[in-house]
């Protein structure tokens, strides 16, 4: 009798614990969120948009060529006091409960970014259902909602398309948590990749958004895609890119596909005056040569390397000056380098760093190594 009683009890426990009935939630009861967009509406309200998967629209997508296939996603929006305040409004429109575990992307509309996003980050860490592996983008000249609604060329969703595109562009993985870590650090201002929508409703990567975290993570400006490559090179967020530049001594353009990028940032203290040395290295292959030079010859190769290095160096110098004078925010993390290399001096400097940064003496040295590519002298048929 006693044994039967124990058995019953154990049975009950087993049923409760192993089947998980208490928290039963099948995939067909969930609405998978792939992307979240944050916008500020014209009347100053926070608007959240989410991109949710419609599984029936995704299944067998390749075979159904007759245009009978339904949409693979839907974008819904709601306004609220903060991020989570919109969830009940979403839930009111959906028969399935939201599931954030597969969120790939967080988009921030330009108007909201200019307004500042410093007080909107908490939910993304605090909510236990949240996902820290999302990537994050700023939407230039537009709203996050519109990017989520756009239909990309290859992928069924913009959210995954944007993630894949980062790899294609040679950008290193930069997650939302990396952004948080940057935003919380002392001597570094965060920057985020940006995307914009063309008139034909396609998204285009369009450089970098520069933030000022000391004013509540406000967007202070943009860098175009070329400058972004350089800025990402300095901050080790770029794995490779292609650069094209005019070589004077060869009277033509050379394109170089860079595949391994290196950077070394040294801080020098001369008479209590800080000097930053940025030393960038890159290795790549010449993929187009319109000059009179023959890169298989050592002398000509040196000419190409030197001129390419020099022009790149000048461009980067210009970029740093522009950021120093125009945006006045230390996106290169020079402050963090000072913090790391001169920790004791940093303690007194960190408070005025935003005033110090625009006046910093920064010297740039670029060293490019080129492989000649598949042919010797340029293939040119001149009239």
């Amino acid at each position, binding site marked *: 009798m006693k044994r039967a009683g124990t058995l019953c009890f154990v049975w009950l426990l087993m049923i409760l614990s192993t089947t998980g009935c208490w*928290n039963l939630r099948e995939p067909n009861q969930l609405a998978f969120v792939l992307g979240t967009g944050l916008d500020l509406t014209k009347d100053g309200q926070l608007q959240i948009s989410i991109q949710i998967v419609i599984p029936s629209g995704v299944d067998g997508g390749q075979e159904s060529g007759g245009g009978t296939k339904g949409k693979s996603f839907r974008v819904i929006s709601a306004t609220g006091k903060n991020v989570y305040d919109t969830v009940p409004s979403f839930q009111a429109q959906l028969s399935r409960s939201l599931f954030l575990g597969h969120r790939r992307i967080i988009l921030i509309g330009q108007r909201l970014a200019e307004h500042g996003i410093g007080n909107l980050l908490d939910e993304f860490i605090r909510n*236990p259902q949240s996902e820290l592996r999302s990537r994050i983008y700023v939407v230039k000249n537009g709203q996050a909602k519109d990017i989520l609604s756009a239909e990309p060329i290859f992928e069924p969703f913009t959210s995954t398309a944007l993630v894949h595109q980062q790899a294609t562009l040679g950008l290193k993985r930069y997650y939302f948590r990396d952004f948080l*870590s940057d935003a*919380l*650090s002392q001597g570094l201002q965060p920057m985020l990749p940006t995307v914009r929508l063309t008139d034909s409703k396609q998204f285009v990567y369009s450089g970098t958004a520069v933030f000022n975290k000391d004013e509540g993570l406000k967007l202070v400006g943009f860098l175009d895609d070329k400058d972004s490559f350089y800025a990402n090179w300095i901050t080790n967020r770029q794995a490779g890119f292609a650069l094209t530049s005019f070589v004077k001594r060869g009277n033509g353009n050379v394109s170089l596909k860079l595949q391994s990028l290196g950077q070394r940032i040294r801080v020098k203290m001369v008479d209590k005056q800080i000097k930053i040395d940025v030393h960038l290295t890159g290795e790549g292959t010449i993929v187009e040569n319109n000059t009179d030079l023959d890169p298989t010859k050592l002398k000509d190769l040196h000419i190409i390397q030197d001129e390419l290095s020099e022009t790149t160096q000048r461009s980067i110098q210009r970029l740093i000056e522009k950021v120093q004078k125009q945006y006045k925010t230390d996106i290169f993390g020079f402050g963090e380098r000072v913090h*790391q290399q001169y*920790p004791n001096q940093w303690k007194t400097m960190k408070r005025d760093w935003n005033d110090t940064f625009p006046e910093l003496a920064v010297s740039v040295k670029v060293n490019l190594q080129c492989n000649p590519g598949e042919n010797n002298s340029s293939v040119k048929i001149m009239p």
Partner: protein
Amino acid sequence: MRKLSGSQIVWMIVTTEIVAIIGINITPAILISKQDTWISMLVAGGIGAALTFLVVHLSMLHPNQTLTQFSQALLGKWLGRLIVLPYLIAWYTLSAYLLRSFSGFLKPLLIDRTPLWIIMLLLLGLMVYLTYSAGITGIGRYCEIVGPIIIFVLIVSFILNAGNTDWHHLLPVYADTGWVTILRGSLRPALWFAGPFTLLVVVAFMQNPQKALSKSMLGVGITVVMVFTATLMVLLVFGPNLAAKIRFSYFMYVRTIDILNFIQNMDIFIVFVWIFAVTAQLSLFLFVASYETAQLFNVKNWRNIIWFSPPAILIMAILIPNETVLAIYDQFWVSVIFPVCGIGIPLLLWIVSVVKKKASESKV
């Protein structure tokens, strides 16, 4: 009663300490010592080993006797018994605290619609089963299996996240904190490395008590190495500023694992292993508390106490209204319970034992 082997002691220490430190003590330490928390963990390991040494050495002076027995032999019947009371309070309340805090950790993450008391009841059922059916030897054998699994899972989590690390997060070393801060950050983990003084009881059940010292030091050593690595990895992935903001930073760390968009959501494995280890931990406390209660009240069969102790633990756990109370208890543990039970009384007992031994030797 069957006896515990040396390797069972090693794994018992590892299993019952490692998850508590990695689970709930990394973030509080990072809040204090920032990027130098890995140094704090090493310092904590040293302090913890010293405190463990004290407790084990004291037990070894009284072979085959548990705390209640040798304290009565040393201090007389009444004072000896009185001295055990704070230990019992500590073990019972700590069990309730762990039961409540682990369930509170589990609930929002995985089973948010399950009532808290169900989770607690399930854990309680496991620990009662383990303790009642096999006693300390069962717990020892259980730890011998679970311990290596824990180490394995931890190492896998370190390897899989190696690609997300950035060593710049550790810079500058030492300059931002200084040794006072590093020491302050090491205090809480140090107390956990020493464990909640269960060795005062457990050593008596060893087959070869003379090996207790080397085995317990090995156990603490393995724990320190794993905790150190876990702390280092958390810092390398999140950086000190973000890690300090995340309450369960190691768990979040596991959630960041993402290899080829394929190996993801490893947290589910970690939760599994955590449940194993928390069961071991709670069972050990339950055994120690029940056994010593039986000794105190001269109950012949300690298993009879099982009718009383688990309900008491469950009621206490249910009565904890919210997580801020847990924080208060935590503070109480560090400032009162541990100094009394982990340092004060063992030191007193140790001095008395040594003096008595000297006295009896000089008589001869």
